[in-house]
Each structure stands twice: as C-alpha cells, then as structure tokens.
C-alpha cells in the first residue's frame, strides 16, 4: 500500500489558469507551472485578529521559497495552512484557497492524512519522539500501515543521507533519539519528514536553535534536496534568507508586501518597507 504517493483527490478540478484578481502591486513573478498556489487566503484566530490578509502567492517546484519578515507576520500561519496543521489551532475564519497540484487542499473533502504525508514539516524546535532514532524515522511509515522491514531500512538510510546525518548516526540507530545533540536532532526531524517521500517540505525556522556548523549542514542539504522537492522555508535571519532563497516573500503584519526572485529582494527591493527590513532598520 503506497498510500502516501497516491493522489489526494481523484480528478483535478483546478483552474490552472487561475488569475489573481487583485495582484499585489509589487508581485513580480507569475509562474507558469507552480506547485502551490495560495489564492486570496485570509485567516483569523479566535482572538479576532486577521493573521493573514488576502495572500496571493505561487510557489514553484524544485526551488527554495523563503517566507520572511518580522515576528507575527503570519509566516508560520501560512506554512501550517499548507499541510492543514493549522486545523489543530483555534482558527475561526479561513477564506480563499490553497491549490496543491491543482487540488484545493482547504476543501473539506480533502484527505488531510494523505495531504500531510505529501507535505512534510519541520519545526523550529527539534521535537524527537521519545523513541529510538530508527523508530522516530519509521514512525510515519508505521502510521501508514507500512510494515515491511526492508522498505523501512531503505527509507531510513535514504532519508538520513539526504539530511546529511547518516554518517553520524548509522551505528547508533537503536539509541534513544534524545541522546543526540540539538543539531543532530533537528536533522533527524528533517530526515523523518523525508521518509514519507513528500513532495513539499515546509521548514519553520529549522535552524533557530542550532550552531553555525549545524546550520551550514542543514542549509547544504536543503540545496541538494531542492532538486527533488518543493521547499518552503521560514528562515531565522535575513542573512539566512539571502543565502538560500531562490524566491522570497516578505510578510509584514499578515500582508504579503513583496514577492520576487531571491537575489533581487535582498539587493534591490521594490517596496520601501522591505528595504527597511532587509537593511536591518526594523524588526
């Protein structure tokens, strides 16, 4: 049973030609074949404030798209919406659509379990489950009903290598995952989401707790991973954003201010607010 690669929903009712009705003035890129289209997305939490305001955003395949901006801008909210993890939060209002491969993942008919297998996420704090390293990695497979040991072993090796931590842990797979260092744990978390062979990987400040060396390792593996995956990253600093971004979106107070090619936004931003932030004048 290869549940995690099958389609979320049978047909594809998606208008790929979906045209933004109110394109942000600064929005430059119109992608021809995006992986994800966020269309007029607005989200409010139970405290009443609108955390995302009418976001339009197209996210390309095989690239790192960076969402950055000052705290409370709604980056995490957008990220969690893409795999419906925000269902767990007390969200009171969701408007708009998020299309993934032409399927509106916000529709109630969607199989969220399959969606989450297709869209992996890594959080700011490395959260390893209180299990062994191996059990952490195969956890998602077990949930999906995959019991085949050889498939497990292959998946573990492949994803640990992809997360650049294979060499460090290959001899201690049956030790508790908490015995690893924070940086190692975070790469275990990355590997754990790769085991399910997702198509999209969401990373929410994945290196915020890590030392520069571990950070470098994670960034390096992201560069390799983007060959095969769609990567959406919330960086923990503007510097990191500038280092890894193929595309970058600047969020401020729930609004998407500017979205363009990474090189441009950090060298020659169009919006003055982006410029202020990039040059460290606020936030």
């Amino acid at each position, binding site marked *: 049973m290869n549940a*995690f690669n099958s389609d979320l929903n049978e047909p594809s009712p998606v208008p790929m030609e979906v045209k933004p009705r109110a394109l942000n003035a600064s929005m430059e890129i119109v992608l021809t074949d995006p992986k994800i289209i966020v269309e007029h997305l607005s989200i409010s939490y139970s405290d009443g404030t609108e955390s995302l305001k009418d976001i339009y955003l197209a996210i390309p395949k095989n690239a790192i798209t960076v969402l950055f901006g000052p705290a409370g801008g709604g980056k995490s909210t957008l990220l969690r919406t893409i*795999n419906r*993890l925000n269902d*767990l939060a007390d969200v009171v209002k969701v408007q708009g659509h998020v299309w993934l491969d032409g399927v509106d993942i916000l529709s109630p008919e969607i199989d969220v*379990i*399959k969606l*989450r*297998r297709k869209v*992996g*996420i890594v*959080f700011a*704090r490395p*959260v390893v*489950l*209180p299990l062994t390293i191996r059990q952490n990695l195969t*956890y*998602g497979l*077990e*949930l*999906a009903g995959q019991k085949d040991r050889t498939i497990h072993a292959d998946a573990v090796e492949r994803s640990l290598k992809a997360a650049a931590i294979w060499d460090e842990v290959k001899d201690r797979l049956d030790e*508790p995952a*908490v015995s690893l260092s924070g940086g190692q744990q975070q790469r275990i*978390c990355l590997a*754990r*989401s790769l085991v*399910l062979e997702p198509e999209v990987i969401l990373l929410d400040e994945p290196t915020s707790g890590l030392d520069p060396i571990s950070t470098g390792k994670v960034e390096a593996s992201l560069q390799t991973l983007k060959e095969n995956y769609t990567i959406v990253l919330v960086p923990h600093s503007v510097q990191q954003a500038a280092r890894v971004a193929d595309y970058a979106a600047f969020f401020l107070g729930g609004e998407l201010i500017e979205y363009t090619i990474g090189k441009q936004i950090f060298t020659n931003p169009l919006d003055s607010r982006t410029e202020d932030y990039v040059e460290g004048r606020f936030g």
Partner: protein
Amino acid sequence: MTAGNNFSTTVESRVLPSFSRRRKWIQRIGFTGLTLATLVTVTPILLIVIHIFSNGLPAISWEFLFEFPRDGMRSGGIFPAIVGTFWLTLGTAAFSVPLGIGAAIYLSEYATENRWTRAIRIAIINLAGIPSIVYGLFGLGLFVIFLRMGTSILAGSLTLAIMTLPVIISTTEEALRAVPNSFRVVSISLGGTRWQTIRRVVLPQALPGILTGVVLGLERAAGETAPILFTVAAFYLARLPSSIFDATMALPYHLFVISTQVPGMPIQIQYGTAVVLLTFVLLMNITATVIRSWARARRQW
C-alpha cells in the same frame, strides 16, 4: 534590606537591623511551629502502622492466611476474606480501568471546553464526593434489586467501580495532559490520526502516571466497607465463591465484623486481620510510589 545599613546617619539605620533581627526570630519561631504541627499530623500515621504491625504480626501464620475460620471465626484463618477482597479488587478494576481511562482520554484529547465538558467535570467532582454508604444504597437499589444480581461479586464490583471511577479519571487525565503537546503535533504532522497519536505516543508516555492512578483508586476500593455492606459482603461463608454471582467475604467487612459483632473475639485474630488488610493497602501504596519515581527517573522529556 541590607541597603538600609549604609545610611548610618539616619534613624532607620539603628532601627532596621534590630527590626530585621526580630523578623528573623518571628520567622524562625513560625517555621518551628509549622514543623511541629506537621509532625502532629503525620506521627499518628506512623504510630498506627507500627501499632498494628507489632500487635498483629505474631498472629500471622500459614494457617491464618490459608485456612477457613473455625469456632464461629474465633480461631482458624481468614482465607475466604482474602480471596474475596482479591476478587472484588479485580472485578472493580475490570470495570473501572477501561471506563476511567476512556473518560480521561476523552477529556484530555477530544473534548473542547464547552458546556457539556464542564458538565462532565462537575459530574466527576460529584462522584468523588458522594459518601461511600450512598454508593452502597445505589448498588443495592440498581444492581442487587433492580437488575436482580442479588448480593454478588458482580454487584459489589460494579458499585466499587463507579466509586473508584473519579480517582482513575482525574489521575489519568493529569498524566495525559503532562505529555508535551509537541509530540501530538509531530505525530499528526507525519500523517497520524488522532487515535494513532494517542495510542502510539500519548498513552505509552502517560502509562506510569495512569498506573499510579489506577493503583491508588483500587487501593481505595479494596479498603472500602460501606459500599459492599449490602451489595456483596457476607458475614461468614463456609466455602469460596464459585462465580461472580456469589456473595463473598471481604477483608474490611471481616475486620468490622470481628471487631464489633462477635463477642469474645480473640484480640490476635483481630489484629492479624488488620495486618493483612494494612499490608494489602500499603503494598498498593508502595507500588504506586515506586512506579511514580521510576517513571520520573527515566522520562525523556
């Protein structure tokens, strides 16, 4: 307050140190008082335990534990009462453990804070407060008479189970809530359903806490007399119960009987019975404490 010492020319400088010394004394006397009061509270517990063991241990023998009472219970053993309490505790567990854990899972993992959840919580608090003799009346009215179970292990276990339920629910819920939420989020993000998450992550992590609660709940059930008075307990039976529809003797009721209802009861038999009951209860208590500290030591979060 040490800062006050620097202003040596002001009036406070001469007042403050002595004032603060006086406060120190008040505190010292106060703390001593608290310590003494606490000792007053806890020493009787130790004295009771020591008293019962020192008076009762001589009565304990193979015969006392494994034989039937003789001579109108004035000699022989208390085997049927031990067996009865064992079965009653087991029967109570059979009903209250699954139900209590289920209810705790509901409260901790499924329920949203609304009016109904509040009603459940209030109901649990009330169940915990209902006098044990009222449980006895309820068991008599519902199980023994209305459902025609008669005075039986089944009726007694059900009554004790409902009485034990609040203890198990609240300790289990506490244990479940102590499991970090991040584990749940991670499990869900890896494609887990809510139940998978509970079964694979939350329950195993909460298990020691749950076990502690279960043991403490059953400890209470094992020692109760009032709820079994009219639902299961027998004054004297010449043979062991053969099914759950039989009445049975039970340790706490037996202790009550031999210490108040039978004239001329040898004192060693009374203390011996008390020792057995106390051992039963203390063992459960120690088990709970051991599980708790063992789990705390090896917890990974």
